[in-house]
């Protein structure tokens, strides 16, 4: 039965060849030594879980601190005469207004206002823009940026650097023991500093809904940083399985599943990523569509669903009370924190009101699902000290 249907919520996104030789992050040996189950993800061999399993790893992160290897993600510096204003040509955020030490969530848009990828863009220092994009999308993303901003920015890929995420309510005290300056940062601060004896870029952000940090270090220092953090008994290694269930509870979309090149930021519930200044100017790719959707409403919108019965996985159809198919689940599973299945999916705005009853079709049978406020589990970001 193991070889049966595996409706994993972790298939590869974007364009990558699963048959190609898998790359290894600098932490590969540490994962194997820790008993990780390694799986192909975004062209890398990545730990989907360690010995504790998804459920325990998930709950540990919500209660203590979880350490994730996300070195498959694409890190780069964009440099040029004015890289901030140049970046506004491909993403709808206010990057000219991005202050040193700050980070912003944004999306790379195609000409039709569809999302090529979602990303973090930061100014850890005065050295241009530091961006982190999804691993499975990185080759295409940097090609798009290079094409669109040719002559304006020069991209330096930071492929030799590792990226670690330390997430959970105890992450701050754990990291402060090694990097006192981390305690002076708030959510979405990002700084270049010396940490663990090496040049690091640390942001107070993550993909779990918890307080925490993402820590970029040179690849050859990653194993030592990983071991140092794990030496703290409050920290356990957490695999991509729990990373996915944590982000789902946090209502955070996963590119290639909840977002793709047809989905606009408005449909994807990411209207906040379109800065007011940019809306007023209407000067970003796909502005006409995105402005029209803001004014008149989109035809579909991403919602959260509390599912009754079996988990509704990606691809499950959503029906209205008359049984008409009106949408689709884009990611779903069992919520370890809540103890019942939850899902993200797209429905027409008329059915997007919190409390609306719909059905999800699982193995041919309709099950009750109720539109629920996002996030499913409250975010616990530290916005001020």
């Amino acid at each position, binding site marked *: *039965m*193991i*070889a*049966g*249907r*595996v*409706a*994993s*919520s*972790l298939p590869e996104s974007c364009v990558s060849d699963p048959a190609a030789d898998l790359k290894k992050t600098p932490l590969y040996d540490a994962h194997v030594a820790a008993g990780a189950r390694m799986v192909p993800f975004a062209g890398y061999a990545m730990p*989907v*879980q360690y010995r504790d*399993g*998804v*459920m*325990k790893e*998930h709950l540990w992160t919500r209660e203590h601190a979880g350490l994730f290897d996300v070195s498959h993600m694409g890190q780069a510096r964009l440099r040029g005469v004015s890289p901030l204003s140049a970046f506004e040509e491909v993403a709808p955020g206010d990057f000219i207004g991005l202050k040193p030490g700050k980070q912003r969530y944004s999306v790379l848009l195609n000409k039709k206002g569809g999302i090529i990828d979602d990303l973090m863009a930061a100014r850890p220092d005065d050295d241009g823009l530091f961006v982190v994009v999804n691993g499975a999308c990185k080759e295409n993303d940097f090609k798009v940026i290079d094409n669109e901003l040719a002559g304006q920015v020069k991209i330096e890929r930071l492929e030799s650097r590792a990226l670690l995420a330390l997430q959970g309510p105890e992450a701050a005290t754990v990291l402060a023991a090694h990097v006192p300056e981390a305690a002076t940062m708030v959510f979405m601060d990002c700084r270049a500093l010396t940490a663990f004896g090496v040049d690091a870029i640390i942001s107070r952000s993550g993909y779990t809904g918890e307080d925490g940090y993402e820590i970029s270090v040179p690849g050859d220092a990653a194993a030592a940083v990983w071991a140092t953090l794990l030496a703290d008994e409050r920290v356990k290694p957490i695999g991509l*399985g*729990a990373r*996915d*269930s944590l982000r789902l509870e946090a209502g955070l979309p996963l590119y290639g599943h909840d977002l793709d090149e047809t989905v606009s930021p408005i449909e994807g519930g990411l209207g906040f990523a379109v800065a007011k200044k940019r809306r007023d100017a209407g000067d970003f790719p796909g502005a006409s569509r995105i402005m029209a959707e803001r004014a008149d409403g989109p035809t579909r919108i991403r919602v959260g669903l509390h599912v009754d*019965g*079996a*988990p509704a*996985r990606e691809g499950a159809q959503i029906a209205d009370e008359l049984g008409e198919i009106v949408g689709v689940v884009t990611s779903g*599973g*069992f919520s*370890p924190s809540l103890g019942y*299945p939850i899902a993200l999916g797209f429905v027409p705005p008329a059915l997007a009101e919190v409390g609306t009853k719909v059905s999800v079709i699982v*193995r041919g049978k309709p099950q009750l699902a109720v539109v629920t406020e996002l996030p499913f589990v409250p975010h616990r970001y530290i916005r001020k000290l």
Partner: protein
Amino acid sequence: MRFTKDHEWVLVDGDIATVGITAYAAEQLGDVVFVETPEVGKSVAKGDNMAVVESVKAASDVYAPVSGEVIESNAELSSAPETVNAVPEAGGWFAKIKLSDPSEVDELMDKTAYDAFLEGL
């Protein structure tokens, strides 16, 4: 107890087979959060999708290891799916099947053969 290569087990008493998934399968799946057992009265042929077992991250099919009629399914699993992890080869059984062809059981692996099969995985 007999075993399949798909990691189901069968325990025969007379012409009734109790079926479930093996400890190895339960361990590989991780925490079971939902089980869909077959309806009583349903006829299954060996190899048919008989049940579904879901972990946090995936749904997997459970195949009928033998042919026959489902005469009982384990109602406890709907409220306590974690039983599959706790006692996969006992209280975590899925269904009882009235065998239509008892000779099918002889084709399944015994414990020694299944352990050797697991060694080779």
